[in-house]
């Protein structure tokens, strides 16, 4: 099992979700996060006072999938979240040791 963690632009969330459903992804977790990368933030001006906002709002998607699905999921997210402009985000992949569904006690791939 792999945990795929993707940081994307907020308005791309629905596109990503629609791209993952056909692959058999049954669930995912979404958080509103802030951060910066090469985009480095933006400048806001309030009555002439300029503030450099270095932390921009992003969406973090966490989805755990069977190891053999990893490449397809990464490809689907990359395609759906792509705009070509700076700030599109990143994808990280981590290994998962164990998974368990709380209601039934099912384990690992059964639990996803």
């Amino acid at each position, binding site marked *: 099992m792999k945990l795929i963690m993707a940081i994307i632009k907020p308005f791309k969330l629905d596109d990503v979700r629609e791209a993952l459903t056909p692959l058999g992804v049954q669930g995912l977790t979404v958080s509103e996060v802030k951060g910066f990368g090469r985009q480095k933030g933006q400048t806001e*001006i*309030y*009555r*002439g006072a300029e*503030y*450099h*906002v270095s932390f921009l709002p992003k969406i973090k998607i966490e989805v755990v999938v069977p190891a053999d699905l990893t490449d397809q999921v990464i490809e689907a997210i990359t395609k759906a979240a792509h705009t070509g402009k700076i700030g599109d985000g990143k994808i990280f992949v981590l290994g998962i040791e164990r998974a368990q569904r709380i209601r039934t006690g099912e384990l690992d791939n059964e639990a996803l």
Partner: protein
Amino acid sequence: MKKPLNLWGLSALVLPALLLALPAFADDAATAAAAAAAAAPAGPPKLDSGDTAWMLSSTALVLLMTIPGLALFYGGMVRKKNVLATLMQSFAITCIVTIVWTVAGYSIAFTTGNAYFGDFSRILLNGIAGFIVKGNDTQAFVLASGIKDVADMSTTIPETVYMMFQMTFAIITPALIFGAVADRMKFSAVVIFVTMWSLLIYSPIAHWVWAPSGWANQMGVLDFAGGTVVHINAGIAGLVCCLVLGKRVGYGSDNMAPYNLAYAVIGASLLWVGWFGFNAGSATAANGRAGMAMTVTQIATAAAALGWMFAEWITKGKPSVLGAISGAVAGLVAITPASGFVLPGGSIVIGVAAGVICFWSATSLKHLLGYDDSLDVFGVHCIGGIVGALLTGVFSYGALSATDASPDGSPGGLDQLKIQAIGVASTLVYSGVGTFILLMITKALVGLRVDAEEEREGLDIVLHGEQVF
């Protein structure tokens, strides 16, 4: 000078007796009354229910400007950690000034007294029920000038309504000040300072400008709804406060972006709506002058919002929401002294001038001079008030202020402009110096500013033990 007022108070007691005795002295009384009518001005005008209804409504509208209008306008512009403290200032000031006004403020501002200060005949609103007979007012409120050749101020509404309407002005004026020192003033200092400021700065200036015995009124300073009394007064006090307290911790380096501009938009919109009570209500009647005051208020506000918006769009590249609402408030401020004196054409010029000039003062002048007026109280209220007060002297249309005694009214012109400048300058000096002295007294009593660590943590939790959410 106190005599006329005391007479009215006495008349409540004497009148029923006189009425009973009247038939017996009918002949003598008729000749005496004719002589009296020739010598003295006619008795107080009757109440007018339409005027009274409008003034009751106006009073509620002006209260709406402070809570929640100004509270939300200011609360939305500060950082998240100071939202409640900012809302609390407006709310607490509403309560404090209500009591101060009741105890002595109204008496200082709106009794005959002398040219600078009222008298103490209305302490604790003593005598305000004097005209009420059988549950009804029989006489409208008249404020005697106390001077032979100066006309009394006659209304067609009860004194209670006049007192309440003016109370809402006394409330919003000090509430405006604290936008300049948002994020850093102690609440205890606010409470003490406001109590003194309302009594010693606001009430006397209101007396100068609005009481018939006031020197500015006699000189002919035109201020329909409070350009000098409210806005220049609060604006210069705000500047003095922010200079004395100093800049916010992290000013110029920390991100001080507004917490929730949607609150500020709601607040500014409520201010706009409430301002119809402020300006059109200052006619103290439901008449044509009130209608014209409402008309020019709407036009000037729109013109100023557009003026600021386009000025910002052209010079900074984007028309910001905060800019548009700031422009609207600048327009409302500038038309305040002029409403009731100017016509729609003049109001467009006043609006555009206020929008563009206040844009410059809040975005450029402030950074040029380097003071930290957090929410631009000086840049919008003082500068906007000065623009409006001076342009009132240019665009005033005589017929709107004409009376039987002065059939030409107060038309605009160079002479009027000079008088307006004197009104502006004396308000700036008295309020500026007075504010400084009261700040020093407050500082000696409780201190003015929270310490740097508390300021970083935020006033909500440090001063009030609460968080916005």
